[in-house]
């Protein structure tokens, strides 16, 4: 017996998408497999590691703890949507490269989305604040030090961008 499918509309990285998914389809799986956006990664499926973090209407949430049907109509931003408008690396992404903030890269998308949202409210963070900002995401490779540096560097790049725009 087939599971009923629910038509679900999402705006993902600015692009309207429609999928027909079972109710139990996790948003993480919907993004990865139904929409082909494999940048969002799955590390635990119980909400602890944060690798699956995406922005839902601008706020970071664990996509492994959301059903796609449960965010019908929402605007989702994934790591793919954190590029710069011209298609190059966005400031957070650039900062990670500048600061060697990643090694295997598996946890990185969750950090990128989380930090992208956080910097909107904290444009000039201290090192301690930067460490708190990333306190809900696990990384097994880097020991976090260079990720903290990446947060500060991203803030700097954003401030430079803003100044250049003025």
């Amino acid at each position: 017996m087939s599971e009923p499918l629910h038509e679900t509309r999402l705006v993902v990285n600015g692009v309207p998408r429609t999928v027909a998914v079972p109710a139990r389809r996790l948003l993480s799986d919907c993004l990865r497999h139904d929409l082909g956006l494999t940048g969002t990664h799955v590390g635990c499926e119980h909400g602890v590691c944060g690798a699956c973090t995406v922005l839902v209407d601008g706020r970071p949430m664990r996509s492994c703890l959301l059903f796609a049907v449960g965010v019908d109509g929402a605007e989702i931003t994934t790591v793919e949507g954190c590029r710069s408008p011209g298609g190059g690396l966005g400031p957070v992404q650039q900062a990670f490269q500048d600061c060697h903030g990643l090694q295997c890269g598996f946890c990185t998308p969750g950090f990128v989305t989380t930090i992208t949202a956080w910097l909107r409210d904290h444009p000039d963070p201290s090192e301690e604040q930067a460490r708190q900002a990333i306190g809900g995401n696990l990384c097994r490779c880097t020991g976090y030090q260079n990720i903290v540096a990446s947060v500060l560097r991203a803030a700097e790049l954003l401030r430079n961008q803003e100044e250049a725009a003025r």
Partner: protein
Amino acid sequence: MKPPVFTYHRPGSVAEALDLLAQVGSEGKVLAGGQSLVPLLNMRLAAPRHLVDVNWLAELDEVSSGEDGVRVGALARHARVEHDRPANQAVPLLGQAIGDIAHTTVRNRGTVVGSLVHADPAAELPAALVLLGGSMELASAGDGTRRVAAADFFLGPLESAVRPGELATAALFPRPPAGGGTAWVEVARRHGDYAVCGAGALVVLDQDLQIASARAALISVGPVPTPADLTDALAGQPHDAADWAAAGRLAAAATDPDDDIHATAAYRRHLAGVLTARAARAAAANAADRFAQGAA
């Protein structure tokens, strides 16, 4: 770790939700924040046949503060309540306790009411509700709305007084009494983890800034939040030089902790004393501050 099949319902109104819940009874669960429920589904530790998704019931997404205290609707996310200024001015304990819940990302989706209904013995908000003598509003299709006092709401580990077919629609956190100050202190293994032990304290000062009464509520030291009356240990003493350790001993004596993989019962009991003393001291200081600011 994929969830099992369930039938998904998205009611358009609270009335519709209540009808659905009445129909599905114990085979249904409410889906609000999902931060506690969905992990259980993913691990197939729970397999409700029906999920009733209340996330579209805008009327439940409210936080209102008044003379009586703060009313938190079922859909109000932890993050919203944590940063709601009127709510935190009326009931500072809310922000103090919510700040220790998991991480920001979880707080963006999880709800205050959901956490209360989940009734985890290591969760902060049940203790906050008990400490302040708050209550829960439960609605059902047949029986209208009933209120359950915090003292009667938490029945056991992960067991609340919500009956099948009921929807918890709001939590009511009363203001601390005049002259009262609160504080929350906890010890967790990692930042954001469930507490190994936690203590909320409410200390009420008289006009001379002496302690008139004091009480605490502790978590992770029993199947439900453990209340403790600290008045005998602290009454009549100056707010900044009271026998906090005695208050701690009173609280520790009230606990009934278990051993688990993170800590022994003995250590938890010890922490109960230490954290109650710290929370009481901080609560008294907060009370004095409020006096100073004329916020009584």
